[in-house]
């Protein structure tokens, strides 16, 4: 099997996610972009698994999914708290933690 197409797609999705994180101010959108990046990685893992014919990649993908789910739980909670106090979900607003 030729994995090139899958890997290229994974790269494209990762880039979209990364650019989204860097450019979008809305926390929710940034968050979803992170999810995109994670899933791009998952795609690459699964592809690898398929190519080598082992289960390692799939296991890793499951790990990533679990971590992503846990992250969503914590992350969303934080975003909601910020939104409640500031009436905004912009990531640039929450910049108090600096020098």
């Amino acid at each position: 099997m030729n994995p090139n197409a899958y890997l290229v797609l994974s790269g494209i999705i990762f880039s979209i996610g990364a650019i989204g994180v860097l450019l979008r101010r809305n926390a929710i959108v940034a968050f979803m972009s992170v999810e995109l990046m994670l899933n791009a990685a998952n795609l690459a893992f699964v592809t690898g698994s398929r190519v080598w014919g082992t289960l390692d990649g799939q296991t890793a993908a499951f790990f990533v999914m679990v971590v992503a789910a846990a992250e969503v739980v914590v992350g969303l909670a934080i975003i909601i708290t910020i939104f409640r106090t500031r009436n905004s979900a912009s990531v640039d607003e929450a910049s108090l933690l600096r020098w």
Partner: protein
Amino acid sequence: MIAAVIALPALSAAVLLSFGNRTNKFGPLLAIFASTGSFLIGLWHFLQMVARPAEERPALTTVYEWLAVPAAGFKINFALQLDQLSISFVLLITFVGTLIHIYSLGYMSHDENPRRFFAYLNLFVAAMLLLVLADNYLLLYVGWEGVGLASYLLIGFWQHKPTAAVAAKKAFVANRVGDFGLSLAIMTMFIVFGSVSFSDINSGIVGAPAWVSLTLGLLLLLAACGKSAQFPLQSWLLDAMEGPTPVSALIHAATMVTAGVYLIVRSASIFNASEIAQTAVVITGAISLLMGAIIGAAKDDIKKSLAGSTMSQIGYMVLAAGLGPIGYVFAILHLITHGFFKAVMFLGAGSIMHATNDNVDMRRYGGLPKVMFFTTITFFIGYLAIIGVPPFAGFYSKDHIIEAALSHSWWAGAAVLFGAGLTAFYMTRMMMMTFVSKSRWHDDVHPHESPLSMVLPMIVLSVGAATMGILLTRNHIFEHWLEPITGFVKPEPPLPIQTITTITLSVVAIGVLIGIWQNIKIAKVAPVKVSFVVKAARKDLYGDVLNETLLMRPGQGLTKSLNIFDNAVVDGFVNGLGLFVSGISARLRRSETGYVRSYAMSIVLGTALLIIALLMVRI
């Protein structure tokens, strides 16, 4: 057993100092007992020693091993050497010391804390005895600095007086300059001979190279100058008169200041081996004896005038000690007679001060014989003794020194002869101003004779001042007594003895006559228009000025600038390093903007950089 001589006053001092005010009631008496006990033990040893033949007289008592490093061949015992020389000192110190203890009972009766004073006196007696009994230089050094400490404490006894505190410190520091010499001498002895005991040095110095005796001699001379207030370390002695008068009598006249002479005589073998060192000693003595006499002749303060006189008389002793075997015995003889007559004069001065509300200005004395009979008589005996009128003590000791000096060289002889004239002059001046002239007292002063406790010691000492000379020189007793220790060679002056005596007495007579003639009328206030010699002498011949400009001011400047250097440069470097780091971090932390997206950006860029770097490495 001889250790008890030291232990008694030392223990008494320890008790008085550590139990404090609880000993106030019996303190002074305890101190007097300790000192008397010490004298009696000393006397007992003396009598035993006299009974033995000359070669068996010295006795060594090793108390314990003080410092010992066997691997390095380093061994210094706490050992006491009792010989003819040290027993002479023991008797002088304890006898005069006890009398002055008794005198202080009256003199210090109005003081708020006589107990402490007596404790210090005891401490002094103990330290001085250790100094003269030690069998090695290091133990001598313990006593040497011990008397320095006692002197420091006693000069500054009235601590509330800033002048006293300053004078005390000055005395200690000047002494320490001398101690610098003594320390180096002891260290040199150790590396050269592997020992610091008198006997080892005496036997080792014979075959030693010339530089050893020269170095040791000069270093010991420096030590002696510090302790004995000889030129150029003389300036502390005049300030030391800030202390209570009994202290001046005991420490700064009779005993401590003569320790330098003791040191030189004790080190006779070293000086005998180096002519240059001996000459240096003679020159030091000559300069000091003239300087002291000139200063003594210009002071109106009776104690300072006596202090100048002390410096001058010690100059005689040092000079005699520098003459070698012809002079050692006479140096010690003069030391002993001086101990008596100078002590009696100081005590007399104290008695007068006691009677005149602590006035020391001779220009406000006068007319005292009417009210202070005993003081006048005893002081007069002391006067006759110091100017060298036969048959008083000073005549014998000084005459011998003059003979010895003349047989050494014409200039040493001239110095001592001129000194004798000066002595006669300034002492006559003192007599005229204090006793003979009409009374010029302050209005509220009503002089009276001092109490018995003060008069008695003065009488005893004046008897000594009158008779000591005859007693010690009859049949050359003292020469034979000390000869086994110091060696003795009969001086052979270029002139017959009778001629020298006649010349000396004429010089003295001239001094006395000038003294009388100049002081028939005495102004209540010191005249301002005086010759430059008097002006200089009033300022201690610029000794202090010299110290200040040469040492004190540059020293202060040096310490201050070093302090600034330490703070600004050394510590400044450290602080600067700290500031540098914190400055850099203050700038770098600005990159922490708080924007999540910029952090993300740096992560992405960083990753990209890493990947590129990895790829490049692979290629």
